């Protein structure tokens, strides 16, 4: 099997069960994969690159332990191997004096096998407005970033060296809080609807167990039948399940409704002038936290 940094952990495990042992030995956080429940939750949603960030190791380290198990690495996609590259420091961080940044190094806790989430949340809560919390650890804590962004924090991550990440969480003062959280809400709504390529669409589809993926073909329905059908499906769609819709066109009025409600994420794959595929899932950003 040819793999690259975008290959899912679940695909690796399916191809070669021995990969589990190899990967979980790479880094402490990856030992979670040995837990069947967490494995089921994570493996289908995590790519090698994401796992490398969580584990605080390089993608190449994954390739090194996987090659002996018969996996071939895709050299064409090497550019994806590069580590997290952040943009320049945002304005709020540049102007923030050092004494207004509280640093919290969670590496010892992580090394001791403890989950520092509770402590981080408490530290953020105690933060006075217009100051920032700086979390030091070995990987980009994406779920944490999203979690605190939803609480109104402005976030920024930088990786001065391998296995060292500074994540800044700025607590806006008074009036800013509402503005930023609304801004973030609006931004996250804009991100709900995305068009994708065939390959990306297939990749997203492969995240779902066949049993968790419902399908609706509305191409032959008379308007407004397609929209009614899709909304009925969505009403009953369990969390974590996906709905694959075969449509004749991009259903813009439906998308406007879904965007307004903010409850669903939509991937749009325009196949041809008369065929569009949609993948709809609950908009539950925090479910990847574990």
């Amino acid at each position, binding site marked *: 099997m040819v793999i690259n940094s975008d290959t899912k952990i679940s695909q690796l495990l399916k191809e070669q069960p021995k990969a589990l042992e190899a990967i979980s030995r790479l880094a402490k956080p990856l030992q979670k994969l040995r837990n069947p429940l967490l494995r089921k939750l994570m493996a289908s949603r995590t790519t090698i690159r994401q796992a490398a960030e969580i584990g605080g190791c390089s993608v190449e380290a994954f390739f090194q332990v996987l090659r002996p198990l018969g996996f071939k690495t895709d050299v064409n996609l090497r550019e994806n191997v590069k580590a997290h590259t952040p943009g320049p420091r945002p304005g709020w961080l540049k102007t923030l004096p050092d004494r207004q940044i509280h640093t919290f190094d969670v590496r010892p806790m992580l090394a001791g096998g403890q989950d520092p989430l509770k402590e981080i949340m408490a530290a953020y809560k105690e933060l006075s407005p217009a100051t920032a919390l700086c979390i030091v650890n070995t990987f980009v804590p994406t779920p944490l970033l999203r979690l605190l962004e939803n609480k109104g924090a402005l976030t920024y991550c930088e990786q001065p060296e391998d296995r060292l990440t500074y994540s800044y969480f700025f607590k806006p003062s008074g009036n800013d809080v509402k503005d930023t959280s609304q801004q973030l809400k609006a931004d996250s709504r804009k991100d709900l609807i995305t068009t994708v390529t065939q390959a990306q669409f297939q990749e997203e589809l492969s995240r779902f167990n066949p049993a968790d993926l419902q399908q609706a073909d509305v191409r032959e329905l008379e308007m407004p039948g397609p929209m009614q059908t899709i909304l009925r499906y969505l009403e009953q769609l369990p969390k974590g399940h996906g709905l694959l819709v075969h449509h004749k066109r991009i259903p813009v009025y439906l998308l406007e409704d879904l965007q307004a409600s903010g409850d669903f994420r939509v991937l*749009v794959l325009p196949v041809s002038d008369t065929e569009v595929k949609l993948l709809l899932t609950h908009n539950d950003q925090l479910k990847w936290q574990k």
Partner: protein
Amino acid sequence: MAKINIAKAPVNSAVLPFYGIAALFFILLSILLLFQSGSLTGGYFNFHLLSIVHIAVLGWLTMIIFGAGYQLLPVICERNLFSEKLAFVSFLLLLTGVVLLAAGFWCTPSLGAVFPVWGLIGGGLIFLSSLLFVCNVAGTSKICDSYSIQKNFILTSAIWLCWTTLAGFLLAWNLRYPYISKDHLELLKLHAHMGLAGWFLQLIIGVSAKLIPMFLLGKSSKNNLLTKAYMLINAGMLLFLTDGYLNGVTDRAIIYLILLLAGIACWMLYLKDVYNNRIKRPLDITLRFTGLSFINLGLTIAALILIVLWRPPIRSQIIYGLLAILGWLSALVLGMTFKTLPFIVWNGHYKHLNGKGKIPLPKELYRQNLLQLQWWLYLLALYGLIAGLLLQLDLLIKASTLCLIGTSLSYGLNIVIILRHKTIFIHATTPEAPDR
């Protein structure tokens, strides 16, 4: 059976000019109304008022209906527009015709009360334009075997439009070269109602019976209600016109009005059925305009009944016309424009896209806050005008027409924003965030 195919939508040039010019006429009409607010408190046979009314019903409302019709018919009928060329010619004819006719009315007082020949030509051009519209409607819907009742309403309304414009042309001829022995003002009533109940009402019934189920996500199996409405309204109209032409408008008009109202009631029952069977979803501001339009239709009918039964002073007829044109019809157009135009433009930009990225949705093609502004200014303008007319407060009338100008400008600005939209498609090339 799949009935809707967006691939059949006509090229934008057959549709978009109508929207742009209609917005211009709306702005023009609100400005003229400010300078002629005095004529609102007089009788309805006033050349300046005639000019404004024709700008409203032809330049603003009919113009936009033509555009929306050319877009909607191919989509409903699953076939290409019969002729995009004819559509564009009808646009040129209507535009030139309205300019000439409205200017003709406007200038009549300064030409020694003689209606100019070029105004007459304008009337003729409008008639030709409406003929072309009928050709396109008939040609497009000919082979379409579905939605027969909706289609019948739209085609019949287009034919009524032809009769209305022809009658208008003959009346204008009479203004210049008097030849009709009957009372010109009585015939004007027939002409006006051919337009209101024959053209606008039936067109709205036809289109709403198709679109409202789509927007509310409801449906009704009670198509027979629409058939009844069709027969009642057309019977009432034909009787009213025949009797009115032969004997003048008498008390018998009440009978025809009852037929017409029964027809409207059937249509309302149909919509109520749709509404009851809908899926609950957020009602946006465009649908609020639609709801307001129905309230204004109710007020229009109430005003009409009062006029027929009690014959109140002359300015009540102005209020009736105002409620119908600026209340019922304009509210509908002010909202529905933002359900149709962004979608048309969106299709032109995003129908063929592919690859990964974010696409704006039709409602992101215009400014929501501008639409909010339009809503509040419109409410102030319409009900301020009516209150001002009822109480005869010139200051209130003036202030309301200022609000109307504000309404038309915010509407026009939004139209410009939509028409000038540039494709925004952000190709995402950076790797996705780990949390997808």
